[in-house]
């Protein structure tokens, strides 16, 4: 589980973990049923306070992203995250906003942006033979 913590942008550390685990689940890099590292292991790996990791795991549990099995660690929810779809949409919305802001800045019309997106989609998904 790759998590990167920064203390430069003012986002609380526990929230950075919550957001990144949600992202990893949404992106399929943490699969349903996969075990998360223990609180202590992640704290030592990221060099952060164990209470902060515990707090992040609690938030993730409340959001239904992970489940705690008694005495056996923390796992990604089996039913997949109920939030995954919403979360994916949220992530893409942010990216779309950034793209549109950039396009506006470069004086590119919406039609042009849409055409570009379609072209890139075609490029990334070549027709199957």
């Amino acid at each position, binding site marked *: 589980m790759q998590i990167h913590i920064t203390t430069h*942008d*003012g*986002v609380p*550390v526990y929230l950075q973990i919550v957001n990144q685990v949600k992202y990893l689940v949404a992106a399929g890099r943490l699969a349903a049923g996969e075990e998360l590292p223990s609180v202590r292991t992640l704290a*030592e790996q990221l060099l952060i*306070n164990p209470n902060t990791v515990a707090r992040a795991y609690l938030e993730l549990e409340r959001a239904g992203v992970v489940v705690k099995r008694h005495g056996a660690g923390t796992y990604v929810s089996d039913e997949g995250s109920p939030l995954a779809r919403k979360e994916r949409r949220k992530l893409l919305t942010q990216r779309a906003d950034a793209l549109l802001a950039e396009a506006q800045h470069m004086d590119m019309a919406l039609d042009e942006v849409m055409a570009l997106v379609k072209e890139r989609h075609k490029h990334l998904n070549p027709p199957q033979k």
Partner: protein
Amino acid sequence: MNTPSSSLMETVIDLAGVSRRFDARLALDGVTLAVPRGCVFGLVGENGAGKTTLIKHVLGLLRPESGSVRVFGRDPVGDPVGVLSRVGYLSELRDLPAWMRVEELLRYSRAFYPKWDDAYAESLRAQFGLDPQARIQHLSRGESAKAGLVIALAHRPELLLLDEPSSGLDPVVRRDILEAIIRTVAEEGRTVFFSSHLLDEVERVSDQVAMMVEGRMVLAGPLEEIKLTHHQLTLRFDQPQAHAPVIAGALSVVGAGQEWTVLCNGTRPELVEAAGKLGARVVAERHPSLDEIFVARAAKKVPAAARVPTHS
């Protein structure tokens, strides 16, 4: 790992109105501080702010001129054995006997601590890659910090006290020290109190933070609370402003013309309302990092008129 409210928790270090003067200079000015058991407490401040003086009072090396110091409920000056046998201490100067070999240092140190754990000391020594035959005076800076850390940890102290543990060390040794802090607190009930001017480090590992400026405690509390009660707002005015806007709770104001960025202390609705009264819109906002809060608190860039009492 619940965090009950601090009033319910046992206080390991308790300072009440502690003052100390060195010649004409007030090194500690009415310092009050409570460190709850089981937390990592980070003390930040510039060089000369009084951090080391405060730690020396906790260790009983200095007697307060006024006010009181209690560690585990005891007076460290009156009962040094009762306090120091439960404390692991790494000084900024790492004042270890230069002529000793590492193994001699360990044997010498174990005599001071009834709870010294030989097996643990040996595993730390090996983990830190310290040669038992090496003389202290030939150790590198990082190695002597590690030797100091072995001594501070090997009796599994209830309170680990570190004065600028990372000062002048390379990232690899800093990592070893931070890991030791995290492991210490992960073992139930242990408390870590450390001073640092590396705000990034403090923000990563601390639950509680206190900030000293010129001998005074300007801010103390749970890190999260401190972060949530500080906001950085960028205000936009319809007309260019000749002077920095005056906002209650502002710690620093930077900007020019129509856009000004204010770092302030208070609740968000209050601040937005205050901005509204000035005829400004909030165009951007974020929570500042601990580093930014500290710089704003220490630098006093706000004109006198804008400096008003803040809640903290």
